[in-house]
């Protein structure tokens, strides 16, 4: 008995001779996705490596192969890192308020060292003497 196949406008699909009625719907096992790697891209020489996303791959070599095209196919890249996602350590969400504990630490910012006015004042005062 001949099964009916899909006549598609897409010649690629017509060639595949897909049956119009499905007898098998593929289903994956959950957590079937290899390892997850995070991808860091450097866009210009000397620039920071910036996190741009992730890829699923069975090992580092394939992860690099995938990351290069998924994240580097547009624009310029001069470097790329990958790291297994589970190697990334972050400050737990409940502890991010640690950042709030130091709201006023002007002494380590440039804004705290504006002495130009003082110099001008000094020059003015001394000229007047």
């Amino acid at each position: 008995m001949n099964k009916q196949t899909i006549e598609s406008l897409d010649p690629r699909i017509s060639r595949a001779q897909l049956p119009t009625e499905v007898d098998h719907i593929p289903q994956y096992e959950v957590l079937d996705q290899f390892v997850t790697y995070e991808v860091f891209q450097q866009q210009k020489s000397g620039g920071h490596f910036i996190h741009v996303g992730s890829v699923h791959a069975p090992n580092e070599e394939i992860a690099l192969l995938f990351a290069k095209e998924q994240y580097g196919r547009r624009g310029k890249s001069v470097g790329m890192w990958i790291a297994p996602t589970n190697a990334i350590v972050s400050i737990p969400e409940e502890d991010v308020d640690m950042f709030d504990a130091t709201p006023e630490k002007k002494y380590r910012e440039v804004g705290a060292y504006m002495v130009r006015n003082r110099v001008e004042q000094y020059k003015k005062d001394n000229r007047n003497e």
Partner: protein
Amino acid sequence: MYGNISIVDQAIGKKNAQEDPEKLAAFQAKIDRGEKIEPHDWMPADYRRQLIRMIEQHAHSEIIGALPEGTWITRAPGFKRKMALMAKVQDEVGHAQLLYNAAETLGKPREEMINDLLTGKSKYSNVFNYPAKTWADTAVIAWLIDAAAIINQVTNSKGSYAPYCRALERICQEESFHLKYGYDNVVTLATGTPTQRAMVQEALNRWWRPIMHFFGPPDIASVHSEILTRWKVKMASNDDMRQQFFNQYVPKIWELGLTVPDPELRKDEVTGKWSYGDPDWDEFKRVINGDGPCNKERLAVRRMAEINGEWVRNALKKPTAKYTVPLS
């Protein structure tokens, strides 16, 4: 590309009542301050569920969206078009990858999402259930469907869930290439030979209704949509986005001397609002429920791709490898 899909989930208001009121208030306050939610932040169960559903449908729409234009990948006329179409279809696959990752950060693995796509349990944008009959259809899709998608995605990129916003930002950058390519393609046909011009007009006629459906039916005010708006999951009403589309693109269609198959379409110069004819919302519902011209084929093709790739994936599986949820 993407379109608003019916994301209605009526249970949403009830579930909310079970959340810790203090946490819920802090969550809302954070969103109100314009801050974004990261994967490991506390979030209401309904927020998580709604986002998974939305991002997942978006991802499916990208991967299925590769098919109508893919129809012409072996027939694109000339080097420039052939390369650009390949790059565009490739981008759609790339967008699916980014979006599946974003949805995964909420706890649903890619495989589970693909399973749900293949069984028909989860949906994708209706517009991809229509056929690309001629080369000109790909031009109209690349210009106007991508234009509609950009309106939708730029709006959503201002939402509250950080991984989705980040994915959308990148996607929008790439889509702007699609839009330019599509416009260039439409202009070339519209200003070309009489045959080319007829081709593009016919394609526009075919795609107009699906484009109207793309943004979804006019929203009905509900508790549900009110909460989603407050959570910055839904960022604009379907009609607002449709109006924006009219404003930006109808004049561009008309200046090419092309027409839109809707005699009622006009702009009220006083209110600035466009009125349009009923695009047959019953058809929209029929297609969502599986009865569109290409629903069967699209799913069959996706299943074929998965079946054909099964041996590759099986060969790569390592018993020691352990899946991890993407970072962000």
